[in-house]
């Protein structure tokens, strides 16, 4: 499936937001890599930093409050952090494409679908007129939308959520990106539509060998779709592993607590095990490990020193003082 070629390497990424209330360390020292054709999942809850990670890769961190203060993002050896916005435009929409949760804000409401897909196509190739129309129809077919004159001239608001996402995916296909970042692409969609979209994304990955970074809070989607997973909490990557190891052999208290707290379809339990406490307040993070206040395994050290990242073998990395005992 995925080759050994690393096409994206993120090294010690730190993206901070400087607000009136203080500094929010949205991403605090994240490092990972992405191989060609691989499906990488980033899972986390609110405040984990998963969305900001994807925005950082695309250099779309909202200014002036947000800034990448440290780190490298190497796309095929080129450090994206050092690029200007003008240079980034050569990457965005071509080699790097992003689909977000709400296609309503990604699709321009005043242009019809044909226009928008056409624009995506023209970024890569110079086609016009009838050739362009044929390409548009081809793109729509790839996402299983039967096109017609009416459809091409229709506007985004006339489409359902699922169809809008499919249009976004067809625009992504038109750009033939190497990396597709999907930020909660199916969260707002019904389950049956979600299944369609995920299947579509997998088809694309197989067919074009596109690497996909899937960002979500839904562990079920992650289990189904991703080969390798990063678990984020309060800006830090606390555990990472291939999908099987993460679900069956996880070693970080947060990962374990999270997976255990999910109701499993088909296995009714008396009481769900849960993680105590509240989600982290990014303005008031404790020194040391941010998960410590909610952790059942915490020791003295956890409250003032953040644990180093250690390997348990085969690409399984954990940041926890006590992972060996868990």
């Amino acid at each position, binding site marked *: 499936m995925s080759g050994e070629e690393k096409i994206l390497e993120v090294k010690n990424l730190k993206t901070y*937001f400087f*607000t*009136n*209330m203080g500094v*929010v360390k*949205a991403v605090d020292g994240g490092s990972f890599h992405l191989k060609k054709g691989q499906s990488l999942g980033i899972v986390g*809850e*609110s*405040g*984990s*930093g*998963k*969305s*900001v990670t994807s925005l950082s890769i695309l250099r779309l961190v909202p200014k002036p409050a947000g800034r990448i203060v440290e780190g490298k993002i190497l796309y095929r050896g080129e450090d994206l952090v050092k690029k200007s916005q003008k240079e980034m435009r050569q990457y965005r929409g071509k080699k790097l494409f992003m689909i977000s*949760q709400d296609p309503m804000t990604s699709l321009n409401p005043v242009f019809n679908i044909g226009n928008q897909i056409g624009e995506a196509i023209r970024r890569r190739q110079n086609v016009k007129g009838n050739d362009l129309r044929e390409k548009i129809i081809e793109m729509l077919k790839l996402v299983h939308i039967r096109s017609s004159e009416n459809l091409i001239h229709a506007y985004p608001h006339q489409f359902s959520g699922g169809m809008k996402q499919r249009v976004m995916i067809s625009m992504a296909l038109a750009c033939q990106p190497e990396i597709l970042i999907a*930020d*909660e692409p199916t*969260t707002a969609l019904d389950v049956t539509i979600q299944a369609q979209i995920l299947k579509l994304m997998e088809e694309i990955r197989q067919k074009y060998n596109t690497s996909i970074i899937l960002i979500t*809070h839904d562990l079920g989607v992650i289990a189904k779709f991703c080969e390798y997973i990063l678990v984020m909490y309060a800006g830090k990557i606390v555990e990472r592993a291939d999908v099987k190891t993460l679900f069956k052999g996880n070693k970080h208290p947060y990962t374990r607590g999270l997976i255990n707290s999910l109701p499993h379809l088909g296995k009714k339990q008396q009481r769900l095990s849960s993680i105590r406490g509240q989600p982290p307040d*990014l*303005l*008031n993070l404790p020194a040391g490990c941010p998960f410590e206040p909610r952790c059942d395994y915490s020791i003295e050290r956890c409250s003032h020193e953040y644990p180093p990242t250690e390997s348990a073998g085969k690409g399984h990395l954990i940041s926890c003082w006590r992972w060996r005992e868990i």
Partner: protein
Amino acid sequence: MPRSSRIWVHMKNAPLGGLTILFLLVMAALFAEFIAPHSPIDQDITQALKVPFFLKGGTLSHLLGTDELGRDILSRIIFGARISLVVGFIAVAISGFIGTCLGLISGYFGGKIDSIIMRVVDVQLSMPYILIALALIGALGPSLRNIIIVIGITSWVDYGRVIRGEVLSVKENEFVDLAKIAGCSTYRILLKHIFPSVVNSLIVLGTLMLGRIIIFEAALSFLGLGVQPPTPSWGIMLADGRQYLTYAWWLATFPGLAIMLVVLGTNLVGDWLRDMLDPRQRAVVRGKR
């Protein structure tokens, strides 16, 4: 994040210029008798058309010069502040009250009532306010009391529309539904749930309207429809000073500056209040799920 430090953050950004202007305005209005160097209505033809103190021939006893009847400009401006403020506050209160009530009713109940009220708003907005003022003053007679009433009645529409818009979005919140299923009366829902959520807009709009209403008063007085001489109003001073613009420019310029500064002040303060009271400005990063 404790609430007090949130307020402190906004205090740091307070528009000192605007607040100072408004402070001076209120002081002038309250303590005119003690601050003003002369009486605003005392005439002294021998002192007519004296230049301001910073020009050749000016004296310190008439800092901003005198008008054609020898009345001290500075004193008239200070007393004029009282008129502007009285008209401003009372008219804002009247229009705010009418506008809020109608906006609440219109937004919350919708349907026919909403249509009727909005039609009234449209009709009123289609008529130039000067004409309405002229007609009403013509019927009631020009006086301080009457222009307050006229301004109050014509200005409510701005409130009405803004408040109605706010109500439309507030009533979509689940807490309104929860109030209904708790058995709250409509009156209680409007008073305790809807109204507190629109109070912010009310305050902000109030400060912005203050400036506009002061201009409105000046305009009406300029046209002779407002306060009558010898009561000093900035509008009347503008009117009187118009004919002397070419050689005794200070008669009209200083009252004009006063109006401009007050409106600027209210706008700055209004903007700041809006930012401070807007709950979305709370700047706590809630990450996207």
